[in-house]
């Protein structure tokens, strides 16, 4: 399947027809809702918060933020940024609650320092790796974006960006840009090594605890893996588990590579870091 990012720039790809198709597809709505709820769980917000939604599109992610109940720390207020006027038009038609800017997040984040409690981005930031013109580079756009995002969050604030990296190189390009901007960062993988794998870049501005949130969610991964096991009727080892590492090491050794000796610490959980 070809990636939309490789076909057209985002504002042209998400034209009126595509934006309507995207927003009315119940399959897409379900997937985006699941990922938004996952991001919210990672943000772990305790009070009604001001949240920036980057690449907010037609507000599928935003409306979930508005709907969080008081018992769960909501409802939240959001401000969205998106480069596609058609997507924002869909949001207007659906009468979502958030304020929106027609803006290119690769040009920066135009809010004063410490504005937001948190930020989310669902299925958008991989677009930053496709620079449309010769006077801008993916590196330059990622820098603008992460520097601006970092400044716009309050101290202790967190951001969760679910994204679709094209390959490992792109994934690293994005996470390195976040770290350079000053974020504490970790990547969480849901359904690793399946075609439904989802990547969440979890970011914190000094003092925030990324590792706590991610560690807690890793337990969910374990359960996910067990569920898959049962369905397929065969053993699936979780990526990063001791069994997995031992098997990979054996593979590497067979290829003549030097690997670290296994120890009682092998496969134990560490602090999330790159």
């Amino acid at each position, binding site marked *: 399947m070809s990636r939309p990012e490789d076909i057209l720039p985002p504002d042209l790809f998400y034209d009126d027809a595509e934006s309507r198709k995207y927003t009315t597809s119940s399959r897409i709505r379900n997937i985006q809702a699941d990922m938004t709820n996952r991001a919210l769980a990672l943000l772990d917000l305790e*009070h*009604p*918060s*001001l949240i920036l939604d980057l690449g907010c599109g037609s507000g599928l992610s935003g409306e979930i933020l508005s709907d969080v109940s*008081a018992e769960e720390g909501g*409802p*939240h*207020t959001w*401000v969205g*940024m998106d*480069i596609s006027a058609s997507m*924002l038009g869909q949001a*207007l038609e659906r009468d979502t*609650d958030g*304020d*929106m*800017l*027609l*803006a*290119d997040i690769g*040009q*920066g984040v*135009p*809010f*004063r320092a*410490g*504005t937001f*409690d948190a930020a989310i981005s669902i299925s958008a930031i991989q677009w930053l790796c496709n620079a449309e*013109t010769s*006077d*801008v580079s993916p590196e330059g756009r990622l820098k*603008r974006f992460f520097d601006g995002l970092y400044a716009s969050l*309050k101290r202790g604030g967190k951001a969760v960006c679910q994204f679709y990296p094209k390959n490992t190189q792109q994934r690293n390009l994005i996470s390195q840009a976040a770290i350079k901007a000053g974020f504490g960062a970790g990547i969480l993988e849901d359904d690793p090594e399946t075609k439904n794998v989802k990547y969440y870049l979890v970011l914190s501005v000094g003092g925030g605890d990324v590792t706590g949130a991610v560690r807690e969610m890793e337990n969910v991964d374990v359960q996910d893996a067990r569920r898959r096991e049962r369905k397929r009727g065969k053993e699936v080892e979780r990526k990063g588990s001791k069994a997995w590492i031992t098997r990979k090491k054996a593979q590497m050794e067979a290829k003549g590579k030097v690997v670290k000796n296994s120890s009682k610490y092998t496969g134990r959980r560490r602090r999330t870091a790159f």
Partner: protein
Amino acid sequence: MKLLTLNFLTCARKTCKSTAAAFPLHPKEAELEQVEMELNPLFVKNMLPRLDWEAMKTLATELGLPNLPAETPVAEELANESGEPTQTLRDLHTLLMETAIASGKLVCGNCGHEYAVKEGIANFLLPSHMV
């Protein structure tokens, strides 16, 4: 665009970001609308310390709204002894959450760039030579 959002929005140009004159943006030919929103006392309380009250007063004056109190209201003024929302809270809610710019322009006090607002959405796309 809610006045709440305007209390945080700055000019997007890199050369303006660090200058005091780039905030707040100044509404021009602005048409206001009143949008009903549910009262969210905890949210208003959360936002209070983050508001730039001087900018809020400037905005109110430029939009021809009634004068605001000289100082930012404090959290204690938002609820009475029995925990009921006060008039201060309701006024803040109306001002921040329910008063919005439907159309017009937002002008940077530093570079003079005008950001158009249509159907409540501000256009912050910059031509590449201005980024």
